[in-house]
């Protein structure tokens, strides 16, 4: 049995240590006079390292640090809808437009693009290598019932994949069609281990391909493939009329920064293994700012 004073000393030491840590943890949430900026974005922009290039420059210019929450497009927009983030950088135009129509988003701008590709095992069991029509390729995959791994997570990639199946006139059902329910990187790794096909954005593919046992079977428009595989990224601020607490001023500063010649140059200059991952689309001479335009005000200008 130990004596009471020693037990007390022991407890006091343990608790003081914990308290010391604790106080600093709570104090760790400090922010500058203009606060932090919370950006919800897709795993493709964060995991590839693009934001590691952009954000320090933004912080230098505006003195505001950026908290990045990297999730799927669906989850990023949902966080925006709840007012838990200040702006979103995503890649699912239809979902973005709906978000704007609902009034949650404001001041949408095109930022950059790359494309989607279909990757799969090198022995190409569905015989789709080099096909120029993505829906034909999907029909082949369904016909041969070769493994296809879907994200299944309402991400931009998943939304596009479902759109392409619909375009192909196929309801993918069967043991060959599986959902990973995880992010792009996880899904690629899983597809590689399973020998499955999957739809992937070229940025994530380029960043990860040397660790994967997969090859590109169907190219996107960057390499002369189907234009339906184009992958544009848009950025939008959360409407302060709906969520007055959001950091709207800094969100607009970020949108200004990323679509400025400086931001666009940084995007164009970002390379992994010598290859450019994203192509700037924020600068246009014409008056089309690629924002959401209500139906009644819409002329015959070119919305994609």
């Amino acid at each position: 049995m130990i004596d009471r004073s020693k037990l007390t000393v022991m407890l006091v030491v343990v608790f003081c240590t914990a308290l010391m840590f604790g106080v600093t943890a709570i104090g760790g949430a400090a922010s500058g006079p203009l606060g932090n900026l919370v950006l919800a974005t897709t795993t493709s922009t964060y995991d590839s390292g693009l934001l590691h290039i952009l954000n320090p420059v933004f912080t230098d210019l505006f003195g505001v640090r950026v908290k990045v929450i990297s999730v799927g497009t669906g989850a990023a927009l949902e966080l925006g809808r709840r007012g838990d983030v200040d702006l979103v950088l995503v890649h699912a135009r239809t979902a973005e437009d709906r978000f704007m129509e609902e009034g949650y988003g404001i001041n949408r701008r095109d930022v950059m693009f790359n494309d989607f590709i279909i990757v799969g095992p090198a022995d190409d069991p569905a015989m789709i290598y080099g096909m120029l029509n993505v829906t034909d390729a999907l029909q082949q995959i369904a016909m041969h019932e070769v493994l296809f791994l879907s994200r299944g997570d309402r991400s931009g990639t998943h939304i596009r994949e479902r759109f392409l199946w619909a375009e192909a006139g196929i309801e993918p059902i069967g043991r060959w069609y599986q959902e990973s329910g995880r992010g792009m990187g996880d899904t690629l790794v899983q597809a590689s281990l399973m020998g499955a096909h999957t739809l992937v954005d070229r940025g994530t593919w380029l960043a990860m391909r040397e660790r994967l046992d997969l090859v590109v079977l169907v190219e996107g428009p960057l390499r002369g493939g189907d234009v339906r595989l184009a992958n544009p990224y848009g950025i939008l601020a959360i409407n302060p009329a709906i969520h007055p607490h959001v950091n709207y001023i800094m969100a607009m500063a970020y949108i200004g920064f990323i679509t400025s010649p400086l931001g666009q140059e940084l995007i164009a200059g970002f390379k992994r293994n010598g290859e450019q991952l994203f192509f700037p689309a924020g600068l246009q001479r014409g008056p089309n700012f690629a924002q959401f335009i209500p139906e009644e005000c819409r002329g015959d200008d070119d919305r994609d």
Partner: protein
Amino acid sequence: MESFHFLWVSLTQAVSLLLRLDPPLISIIDVSLRVAFTALLIGSAIAIPIAVLLTSKNFPGRQFLRMLINVGMGLPSVIAGVVVLLLLTARGPFGAFNLLWTPTAMVISQTVLITPLITGVMISSLLGVDQRVKDAAVSLGANRAQRALVILREAHYGMLTALMAGFGRAIAEVGSVIMVGGNIAWADGISHTRTLTTAMILEVRRGNFEQALALGIILLTLVLVVNWIAIWLQRRAGR
């Protein structure tokens, strides 16, 4: 042996990260420890009185409370994560405090997860105290508070086990902290809400398995060191 090469790769990466005092890594360890220790502090402050109460007094609903604690001991972390997220979301009941995406949010979800565990282990260690010790204390004229202290002292080993189990669960936790903390590092790699476990998730997502395992090795080492210190303190106090 060739196929076990990854272990060597991860180990050397872990050692070189530690030796270089890699600033992002140090900040990740710092956040992991602070959050886990704060949760442990709050959790044990709640757990100790509950455990003492549930083992010393008889009152209606006691069995039910004990059952709740047992269920809570196995609470899946994603449940805690979703609940804390919905509580802290901007339009949620505590949205005004602006706690989402902060270490404080992580402390809250970890506290929710470890408090039942600490309480449960404490209850079993307090129940394990020999009835003769309690009787002896009473017969020597101990009042209720003195009797509780005698029991606490007698059960000190189990109490420490409870604290270590709580700390272990807190620092190994990943499901809820990634949801309410957001796995945020600043642009220079310095952690805001990134812990060793959420950093591992990120590295796995990027396909850097060896790097992920290197972080895992560091996490285990950390837990080992903390356990060692705790046992050493206990030995010292017991001498």
